[in-house]
């Protein structure tokens, strides 16, 4: 462990850091996605979703796959530090109407993948949770 702590800064600095654990040690056991609820000063609201791969064409999902990776990280509580930036980004992209954006709520949705003995796949019901709310400041929309 000591040697790891010793060499880590050099690997991190040089870009040689790496981890090879695709779908490991445990693959994701939920389907999930992230949406935003945009609340305007005049009381109107709008649901805005990050691109969901399963709803895109084959070409679009190939080009926009980075959103899948991003959403996978965004929904994690361990990545709370990136939530304000995400809320600001969404506020800017939804501020072309007459009323300015007042608040952005980030919502995660998830549904467990449950193996059944007969092999049939029956999607489990979706759960949802507002995991972040951000009050938009005028300078955020600049």
């Amino acid at each position: 462990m000591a040697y790891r702590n010793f060499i880590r800064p050099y690997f991190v600095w040089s870009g040689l850091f790496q981890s090879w654990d695709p779908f490991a040690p445990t693959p994701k056991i939920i389907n999930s996605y992230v949406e935003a609820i945009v609340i305007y000063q005049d009381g109107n609201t709008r649901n805005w979703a990050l691109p969901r791969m399963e709803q895109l064409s084959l070409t679009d999902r190939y080009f926009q796959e980075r959103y899948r990776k991003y959403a996978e990280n965004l929904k994690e509580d361990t990545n709370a530090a990136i939530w304000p930036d995400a809320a600001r980004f969404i506020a800017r992209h939804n501020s072309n109407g007459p009323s300015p954006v007042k608040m952005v709520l980030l919502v995660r949705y998830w549904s467990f993948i449950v193996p059944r003995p007969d092999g049939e796949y029956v999607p489990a019901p979706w759960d949802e949770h507002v995991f972040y709310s951000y009050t938009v400041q005028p300078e955020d929309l600049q």
Partner: protein
Amino acid sequence: MRPGKLAEAWNTFFFAPQSPIPLSLFRIVYGGLVIATLLMLRPAWLDWYGPHAWVSLSTMHQVEPGTRLNLFMLIPQTTAWIEAFFWVCLGSALLLTIGFLTKLNTVIVFLCLTSIHQRNLFITHGGDTFLRIAGFFLIFAPAGAALSVDRLIRVRRGNEGPVVEARSPWAQRMIQFELALLYFAAFCSKAQGVPWLDGTALYYVYHLDELRRFPLPAWFLHPVILKLGTWLALALEFSLGVLIWIRKLRYYLLALGVLFHLFLEYSLNIPLFEWDVLSAYILFIDAADLRRAWHWLRGRAHAIAGERAVLSA
């Protein structure tokens, strides 16, 4: 093995000169993959890396502190500068692909890739990581020794003869090791997970809506098949990480690896990852076999062209 013999084998493995043609071919494919990666990101360069990106530069620094090789920390955070940065990356990757000013462009491409990844670590996948690490070792490799504009210039100036000289392969070996490490580390991570051991892992993977690409036949999703597939994937990752070094098994394993990655490319939507990994398979092919394959392909192309000419006459 005696220590003397071991040292000799080590020196032969890393430093005995060998043909740089596999490495040069790898450089071409590698450059093409970097170009493809940058072009696929093109519509969202500013969304992911711009001054008002999904993750700001300051947030990224806060999340991943410490000194990092990241050119984004040096350039002004304006739209024009960020766009210019990406065009420079793209131009450099193109020059690397054709092998012009190869050494310089290996350095630029590595610096660009490292900076892009450091700028937003939340959207990188294993393929990006592999390109970055391979790019580092490519800096030290004779990547422009063959199949390059640099070589054409050297030959024209009389600095090199018609035969491509053998070169020390140590940097190529490091990229080969990186590929083997990728598989072996993935095997070790998976071997710690219950779903990989009890055979249910692929059930979850193939029921992730977001990863689905082309449709699979219903029989593939049968629990028994998925269980066999899970264990087969484990066995293959172990073999490609460890047994790949046994010369007699190498081509069989490479063939299985190609089938494995093509199947993943078909069934899962993880853009370019499979091609990034497969690119390094070239480094495991003997130069003589590459030459034979090239002559065969050329012969076939001439034969087909000849048949067409006869038909149209």
